[in-house]
């Protein structure tokens, strides 16, 4: 293992500053809430500014395929900022998961390259049609619930898909006579139904996808599909840790701000040691969360052989830190933290949903048991 770079480069800091300034301007908490209540799948104007104009949609895609040719390290910085703003944009679902799956296919294939180019430039929004709860790092590919028929169509249902409602193209794992494969389906087809589901996380809504003889193009067959999907999920899980870090950061910052201002008993409530220690403990959690998230991003960026361990550690750790930070944020705000108007609930819901997304902490610890040779007791 080469020494991992756990810091932020100057270029990464610049990228962060640009993304943060856009989000501060275009994605304040009040607009996140009204966007979530609008029934739209995501904030289209914000995604255009962030994904297309700023070019973040193509960070993971090589230059020659229309992307920015950056790495998971830069994408992680974007994820942190998106988490900090609970931004309702399809970055994880389109720019990470869908683009990641395409990158695992044969990019010399024209159809693959065309799709990647469209996603990278933000001309098109994609989604990988697997339940958001699918555990990354699990052995084998996620079971396909969709059937590929001889006439080149797909039929079946996938539930709990994040980002499907706003997507133009779905990347669907399916099994047919040729075995397991990854297929592209246009959501505009009448044989494709995307039914939005009432989701715990208002800012990343899920949908059920139903295909009834939907025309599909095969992007990868049994030789690559499983690996492509597996790698996309692993990348998604690794970068999700940075989103969780961003969520936790906002929660701590906001809680510190509130407890400095709010007075009870003639003093700022943040001056009570009972609360001070709680916030200091959260800060400690954030220190280690940042280190694990950076390590996962760096491992993904450098294709380190330790990547599965790095991702499992980051997920097992950051998922819980984000939930704890959001729960503390609500608690230390008191009554106002229980309201719909205050943004704390948006972070709580995102943190709780992220804990289940791409594998719960328990699943990732279980994966680690195998990876670092700490077997469960027999029987």
């Amino acid at each position: 293992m080469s020494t991992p770079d756990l810091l932020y480069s100057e270029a990464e800091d610049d990228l962060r500053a640009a993304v943060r300034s856009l989000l501060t301007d275009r994605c304040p908490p009040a607009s996140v809430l009204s966007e979530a209540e609008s029934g739209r799948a995501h904030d289209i104007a914000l995604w255009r500014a962030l994904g297309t104009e700023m070019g973040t949609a193509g960070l993971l895609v090589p230059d020659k395929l229309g992307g920015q040719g950056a790495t998971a390290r830069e994408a992680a910085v974007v994820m942190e900022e998106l988490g900090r703003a609970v931004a309702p944009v399809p970055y994880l679902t389109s720019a990470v998961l869908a683009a990641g799956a395409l990158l695992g296919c044969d990019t010399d294939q024209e159809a693959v390259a065309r799709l990647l180019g469209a996603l990278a430039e933000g001309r098109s929004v994609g989604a990988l049609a697997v339940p958001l709860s699918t555990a990354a790092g699990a052995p084998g590919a996620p079971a396909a619930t969709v059937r590929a028929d001889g006439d080149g169509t797909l039929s079946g249902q996938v539930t709990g898909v994040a980002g499907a409602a706003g997507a133009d193209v779905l990347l669907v794992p399916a099994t047919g006579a040729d075995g397991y494969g990854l297929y592209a389906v246009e959501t505009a087809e009448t044989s494709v139904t995307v039914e939005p589901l009432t989701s715990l996380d208002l800012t990343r809504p899920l949908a059920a996808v139903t295909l009834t003889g939907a025309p599909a193009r095969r992007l990868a067959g049994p030789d690559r599909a499983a690996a492509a999907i597996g790698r996309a999920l692993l990348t998604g899980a690794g970068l999700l840790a940075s989103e969780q870090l961003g969520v936790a950061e906002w929660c701590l910052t906001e809680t510190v701000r509130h407890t400095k201002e709010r007075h009870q008993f003639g003093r700022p409530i943040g001056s009570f040691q009972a609360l001070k220690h709680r916030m200091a403990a959260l800060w400690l959690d954030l220190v280690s969360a940042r280190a694990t998230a950076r390590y996962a991003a760096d491992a993904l960026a450098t294709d380190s052989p330790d990547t599965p361990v790095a991702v499992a550690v980051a997920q097992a750790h950051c998922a819980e830190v984000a939930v704890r930070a959001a729960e503390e944020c609500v608690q230390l705000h008191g009554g106002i933290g229980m309201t719909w108007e205050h943004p704390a609930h948006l972070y709580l819901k995102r943190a709780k949903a992220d804990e289940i997304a791409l594998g719960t902490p328990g699943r990732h610890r279980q994966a680690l048991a195998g990876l670092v040779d700490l077997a469960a007791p027999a029987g």
Partner: protein
Amino acid sequence: MSTTGHHATVDADELRRRVRELLDAHPPATTDRLDFLRARFDAGLAWVHYPAGLGGLDAPRSLQAVVDAELEAAGAPDNDPRRIGIGLGMAAPTILGFGTDEQRQRLLRPLWTGEEVWCQLFSEPGAGSDLAALATRAVRDGDDWVVDGQKVWTSSAHLARWAILIARTDPDQPKHRGISYFICDMTDPGVEVRPLRQITGEAEFNEVFLTGVRIPDSRRLGGIGEGWRVAQTTLMNERVAIGGGRIPREGGMIGLVAGVWRERPELRTHDLHQRLLRLWTESEAARLAGERLRRQLAVGQPGPEGSAMKLAFARLNQHISALEVELLGEEGLLYDDWTLRRPELVDFTGREAGYRYLRAKGNSIEGGTSEVLLNIIAERVLGLPPEPRTDKDVPWKDLPR
């Protein structure tokens, strides 16, 4: 207070006899629900530890379970306590403890039957944990008090006929001493109730604006300037009301997740299993501790120990519902309904896992936050010295705001 020492006369057998008499005279199958509840109250079987004539029989509190079981077995209607929790758990013991005979006679019966819903006008934007800092003013005007101010987080205000209200009657006194306790008529034209939406999507609590609300002095509870002491009774009872109820093994939140575990083997993992067993054990321990505490409290008003039950209840509700969402995985990512609604009742174990997870967050805030309750235990149970305070002896009007 509620104990009068006449226990000896009413035992379990006597209560069973009286229940049979009630059932014979008012067969539940053919009696109107409200008529039955009123008859039950008049028979002294509403809350047996209350005085005779006020819905009780001066019997030991622990015998209530005998009455409840007999009536349930007979298919008798109950007073739907989830709808009237504030009345039953908080207003009633305070009225009993501090009310005049007239107030008790007028208020307790419709409170218990649920004909009149109660709410609690305590918290204000500037006075939550530091409730004694409250700024709502009550000014004497002839036989009335004129009340102006704003209350917040008021559960059930939209349904309530009456409120228990604390307001400042003497700003020249230090904060704890210038407060008086009133019964406020929620139909007064000066009362304005505005819904506040919660993280669950519904609007269970409210903001309440009080503008020139007239309260006759006859609706004061306790002496002028003694409102803080009266409020302590309400708050101690509130903490027992939230989380102090008698439940069977696996009652409450743990029973729900245990049910899912048994029915859905495909969801099980080693990690969740260990965590579930830990929470199951803690729930059982908390249940037994509650059982013990209730025996100790069989007489009199609850003390600071009651806070322990509420603390455990809040923590367990939060951890168990969080585990349930995680256990459900893909389904845990869904929510039943975000529509803005005005609920008729509050049920912490109602609806689906996502709702329970979010609603449980309020359990460590409502009725005194967990931090404040820990302070109470540290200072009043353990006798640890309080933090130095600068706000206790200064006239309220001179406190910085």
